[in-house]
């Protein structure tokens, strides 16, 4: 059994063989992956050691202490948070070996071709078609939207309709799409912050080999649910230190600007500080439930890498907090809150909440309750799947997708 001491030893071996600072960044990351220290809870040979997920913190701390190169998780978040757990669960051995290593090292960026102009919250209603050709490969036509990082991506996870004659959840299939293929066109979509983090993606006669299908034909919804559950944890579940992230920016602003303080803002800041600390603890508790940790080895958690619907709760809390804190911060800034740092159209590589100013944070945080499932939809999930409340009446359940009103 891999324990913390064993991981420290392995990390020391890695550092001895590949001195940070003198080793090429990519060489270092590849060596780290091969040593099983990328995500220690993944299987051996796929960047991990089958170790408890919580032990990753041991490796990360040791490597951070010597400033070892990292894989820039803000830039490759979709690959790490959504594609990887889905490939791990549904991919063939060959797919896992092909995709996971360059995904983790950041050599290949991933994006998520799920949402469409006509299908967002109701993702299973999507219309992008995948039709099988004589060789058993697929031809894909359709339009996707809000696709973050499509302009940087080498690969995409894609859900498409392969059978319009059955009810909407049953006719979907999940693919890995090569973004460099002819027929893939990416157009920037400017957003509320002025930048273009996401895109419209037009798919015209894109040919996807059957070897790039993930899961069985018609099982796309099942596979997509794994992605979506992991997405919620990826968005809301990042591990932060106490007073980390956005509340740190706000608290620091408070300390640095005594001239702007008011009693009302003080009361609200303290409340937000408590909410942020409790959200941090709630995330920590969820993680302790998901996998045995350093000091609480327990049975009965959800299987490895499969967050339950409770993950939706984390995302809800995160979105609410980010919006409240960023709103507070603009107000606290006073006159400076009336200004914005930069409206030029940019193509950012990932989201940097703390690197820009209060106005940016305020506007970007509006997306937190929309991306990866809106707060309304997540509340439905909690109500039905966590609390077991009766479902909404469903009018579209047994109707073939092609016959649904549109």
């Amino acid at each position, binding site marked *: 059994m891999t324990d913390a001491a064993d991981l420290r030893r392995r990390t020391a071996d890695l550092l001895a063989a590949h001195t940070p600072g003198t080793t090429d960044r990519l060489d270092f990351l590849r060596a780290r992956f091969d040593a099983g220290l990328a995500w220690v809870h993944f299987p051996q040979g796929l960047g991990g050691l089958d170790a408890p997920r919580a032990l990753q913190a041991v490796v990360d701390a040791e490597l951070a202490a010597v400033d070892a190169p990292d894989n820039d998780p803000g830039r490759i978040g979709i690959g790490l948070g959504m594609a990887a757990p889905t490939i791990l669960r549904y991919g063939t051995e060959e797919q896992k070996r092909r995709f996971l290593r360059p995904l983790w090292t950041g050599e290949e960026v991933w994006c998520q071709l799920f949402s469409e102009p006509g299908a967002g919250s109701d993702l299973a209603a999507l219309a992008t078609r995948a039709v099988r050709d004589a060789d058993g490969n697929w031809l894909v036509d359709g339009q996707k939207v809000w696709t973050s990082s499509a302009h940087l991506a080498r690969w995409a996870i894609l859900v498409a309709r392969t059978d319009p004659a059955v009810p909407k959840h049953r006719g979907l299939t999940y693919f890995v799409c090569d973004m460099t293929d002819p027929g893939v066109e990416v157009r920037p979509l400017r957003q509320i912050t002025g930048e273009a983090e996401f895109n419209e993606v037009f798919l015209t006669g894109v040919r996807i080999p059957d070897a790039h299908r993930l899961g069985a034909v018609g099982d796309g919804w099942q596979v997509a649910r794994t992605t979506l559950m992991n997405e919620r944890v990826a968005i809301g579940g990042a591990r932060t230190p106490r007073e980390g992230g956005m509340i740190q920016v706000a608290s620091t602003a408070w300390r640095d600007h005594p001239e702007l303080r*008011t009693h009302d803002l003080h009361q609200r800041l303290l409340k937000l500080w*408590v909410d942020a600390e409790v959200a941090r603890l709630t995330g*920590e*508790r969820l993680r302790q439930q998901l996998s045995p940790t350093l*000091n609480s080895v327990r049975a009965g958690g959800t299987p490895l890498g499969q967050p339950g619907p409770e993950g939706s709760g984390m995302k809800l809390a995160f979105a609410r907090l980010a919006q409240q804190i960023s709103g507070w911060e603009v107000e606290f800034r006073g006159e400076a809150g009336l200004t914005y740092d930069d409206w030029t159209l940019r193509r950012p590589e990932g989201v940097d909440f703390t690197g820009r100013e209060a106005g940016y944070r305020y506007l970007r945080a509006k997306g937190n309750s929309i991306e990866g499932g809106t707060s309304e939809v997540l509340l439905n999930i909690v*109500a039905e799947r*966590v*609390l077991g*409340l009766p479902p909404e009446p469903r009018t579209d359940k047994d109707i073939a997708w092609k016959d649904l009103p549109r």
Partner: protein
Amino acid sequence: MTLTTPEPEPDLLYSAEEDALRAAVRALLADRCDPATVLAGLESGRPHDPGLWRALATEIGVTGLLVPEGLGGAGATAREAAVVLEELGRAMAPVPYLTSAILAVTALLGCETDRAEVADSLAALAEGRTLGALAVPLTTAPGDTGPAPVRADAAGRLTGRVTSVADVAGAGLLLVPAEGPGGPELHAVDATADGVRTEPVTPLDLTRPLGHLTLDAAAGRPLARGDRARAALDRALLTGAGLLASEQLGLADWCLTETVRYTGERTQFGRPVGSFQALKHRMAALWLDVASARAAARNSADALSGNDPEAPLAVAVAQSFCAPVAVRAAEECIQLHGGLGMTWEHPAHLYLKRAKADELALGTPGRHRETLAGLVDLAAP
């Protein structure tokens, strides 16, 4: 550059032993403390249920959890006591657990426990033979201990009046903070001694009776003086406030569970009312609050279980978060039950009264946020 090891994480889950303890307490309460019994007891004017208390003390032995084994207790920690409080909160059990087994016991543990006087009292409280009460207004927050309203003369005679003391009427042993000739003191006073008088107050929360305590040259036995007396009192209040979060959690959890159950069954407009999204979203939002309160309450119990220097911060966070969650849960419970929630027969009102009183007990959320401001360097304007 130094190699950092990850900080020890608080253990926010429940251990197998804690789960077993919970099961035992829950089974006992299911048996002897259903809502109808609680209501009938309150209406009979008998605020506590002595039979239930005896069962808790002797059958499961939870009254001595915080008392070390050598002193006649179970030698457990705040983590286990927190689990008991969750269950007592869930059942609205009319027993003086917070006051006797937590506040009074912790105050005594802050004194010299090798003195016979202290050790004997601890043993009596641990066995549940005697009920203890800490003579401070229930609203007192940790750290809010200025000069006590009771004066002690050089001979240990106590004079003064303490208002709104929780569970004072049934208590045999009073732990009385007093101002002596040389500063703060903590005294033991027998409730039956000459010069001790209590008057009951009609409480908002029927399940936790309050009384005013008047001492008129009553005989006190000094247990601690000076900094030691002050520290014992502060630690008791800190522990009480930190564990009250678990009672609030249990209370909120009951309110949510009961509301989900009821709205899933109650039909209007041809559908269970719990299938209406407006209601589902409210309950889902409450679920998130309760799940968060659980993390905060576990964190404070964990911090109180050792000599964690972070305990004051953990307690301030837990109290400022959990108290409003409990109130909201009880308020939502009443609203989503419709007219039924407004009746005396349905137990929801007991929960609301307890939740609202708990919000004031041992420091309001605002008071705890003020403490926090000092601890995390967020100074007031």
